[in-house]
């Protein structure tokens, strides 16, 4: 039976491809777990509770080289500018500032995480994924795509953190 199903789907897909070329909205031909109506129905994820990217934890400092970090009340604009440059070259392959991409968007991150947690996540993502429950949840939320260690120096990660402080919610 399953085989037959697959064949039918394959056939349908083939048909679809051969009919392609026009910019029409195409009907989904794989309808597993969805209602049969053509109307796309909003389905809620099965997971319970808040996704890790929305969770707020302002006490967890994470695991890694940064144990304690107190931020100045005022933003160091020069450092933030350096951070913006670094973010562009080292991070944008996977992060957009205001939108989930491969990984989460950093906008408003300081309202959700401690500065130490952010720095540790940048500086030692392998250790964080192994030992920090929030980092583990985030990994799951982002399809198991682990954050790459971009071999940044501590002051570079610090500059990126400063840049994150300048990101305004749009």
């Amino acid at each position, binding site marked *: 039976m399953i085989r037959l199903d697959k064949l039918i789907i394959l056939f349908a897909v083939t048909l679809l491809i051969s009919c392609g070329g026009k910019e029409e909205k195409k009907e989904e031909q794989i309808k597993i777990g969805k209602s049969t109506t053509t109307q796309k129905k909003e389905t809620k994820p099965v997971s319970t509770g808040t996704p890790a990217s929305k969770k707020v934890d302002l006490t967890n400092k994470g695991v890694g080289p940064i144990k304690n970090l107190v931020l100045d009340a005022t933003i160091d604009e020069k450092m933030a500018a350096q951070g913006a440059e670094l973010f562009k070259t080292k991070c944008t392959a996977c992060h957009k500032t205001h939108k989930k991409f491969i990984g989460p968007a950093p906008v408003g991150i300081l309202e959700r995480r401690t500065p130490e947690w952010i720095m540790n996540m940048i500086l030692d993502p392998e250790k964080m994924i192994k030992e920090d429950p929030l980092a583990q949840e985030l990994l799951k939320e982002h399809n*198991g795509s682990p954050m790459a260690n971009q*071999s940044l120096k501590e002051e570079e990660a610090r500059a990126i953190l400063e840049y994150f402080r300048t990101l305004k919610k749009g």
Partner: protein
Amino acid sequence: MKRISQILFITAVLSLVITSCADINKDKKMTDGALGSNAAEKVYVAPGEHDEFYAFVSGGFSGQLSVYGLPSGRLFKVIPVFSQDAEKAWGYNEETKPMLNTSYGFVPWDDSHHPDISQTNGEVDGRWVFINGNNTPRIARIDLSTFETTEIIEVPNSAGNHSSSFVTENTEYVVAGTRFSVPVPQEDIAIKEYKGKFKGAVSFISVDPDHGNMEMAFQILLPGFNYDLAHPGRGASHGWFFFTTYNTEEANSLLEVNASQNDKDFIAAINWKKAEEYIKQGKFKTMPANYAHNVYDEKTHTATSTMKKEVKVLDPAECPGLVYFLPTPKSPHGCDVDPSGEYIVGNGKLSADLTVHSFSKMIKAIENKQFDGDAYGIPIIKFEDALAGVVSQAGLGPLHTEFDGKGNGYTTFFISSEVVKWKLESWEVIDRKPTYYSVGHLMIPGGNSRKPFGKYVLAMNKITKDRYLPTGPEVTQSAQLYDITGEKMELLLDFPTIGEPHYAAGISADLIKPRSKKIYKLEENEHKYAVKNNENIRVEREGKEVHVYMTMIRSHFTPDNIEGIKVGDKVYFHVTNLEQDYDVPHGVSIIGANTSELLIMPGQTETFVWEPKQVGVWPFYCTDFCSALHQEMQGYVRVSPASSNIELSWSLGED
């Protein structure tokens, strides 16, 4: 009947016991140490632990250089040098194609022979390793911070670049001597005009002390002999270089017979400091030439090939004091200098004896002008006057000697298939051990320097026959490791090698390990087509050429959907690996590409060319398993007919 069979059975059991006892005794004898440790323990490097030495073993007719650990014999890397390597895109990607350029055009193969590690004050320093291409004469320099070939220089006026590539005590020069003499300059003459007409060029290639860049400093045009191997003077003999010769008969046919007539051939002793003086005085001739100099730039990750048009040449007949000949029996192969620099060993391959010349006696003979005639104006020193001693009847077919730094020489004997240990100055044989089979060269880490690490000797064999599981008519090549810390040598390990291992160079791992690069820094990437941030990702058309500026990171390409490519286009994929973490290379190729994959290290940019031939939508993907989402790392290129008006477009995800 029953009785007889019982007796037979008991006898069989007894003989088994006896045999195993004998074996135990034999093993004990082999270990020769008070602790009685066994060979397996001595070569066992526990999982996760590192070897004590690097061994750079020539790949012979594979044209490459392999990197092994000693004592384990584990293979770490095959560094592509003279031959294309599809695995690493060497000679296939746009960046490295120029590395294989020569005056004969693109040459995708060579026969690599003799690696030698750079030296400072006569000790191996682990900065570079040099190796020669024998067939189309070239010398390559490999950078030991990246383990990549970074420079190749072609050698003009040369053919069969065999007595190469050996360095002087401070890597002032790497030398390259011709095995085959040829008309210099080349001309259309009868082969029979060989005698007197053909010349043997030995080249001194200078090496920049900071960057290692090579330059053809000068050549010395020697008589038309075959220049087989060479080694530098050191200590007192620093400033001299020694080359073995054979075919001093100057035969041009049936050399097997005709080049084996003379009882003695020569070791050419070349005073290269004198050569420098002559060059300074302007006593050279500038000859027109045509040879390629290929340099890989670490910052642009791109090689360039420049054709050089002339070479400085010295004629020894016009430069007194530059070259002397030391008569040496008989068709000598290896030419080896002991750590003190006093003894020069000629391994006469058709002789049973080893001839050891004395440097100080040679100098005295030169001062006293005790010559025994000359060859093409080059003085011949009387055999006895420079002779230090003879290791007599040590074996059959001596080929090559290295030293342990404790007063002993170790010589390979090809015909009698053994390594013989002998004592310097007393010239007595101390030990001999068989090799399996027909050993060529051997190597002691640092054995061609003032300070050998006299712990192991690695013998490289020419024949392996029954030593390994058979693999059809072509069987594996192999090396064998011996412990040389005791009075007697002990065979520890057989291990397979690539190509035919001619020679090797070894060094303590501590001298290389700390300098080994982990990634290429993105900010230092000056590749013309690098994309260092996602804002610069683009696809550009220049007529029929299309340039894709692409990036890769776990686990996607940007862009991964490209449209507007047409049949007949030449598409350049310039791909930058944005990773900055150790050991995260990505690979890439596309269906039907007439070239190899790219294997791109973190921070590096490489380029491959694709010429789509069919309309359709064609996938590309990452070829190096990079992450849990590696199977998702893929993309599509839409190829439209040549007449199509579809504009170039590219995207990743929804954007």
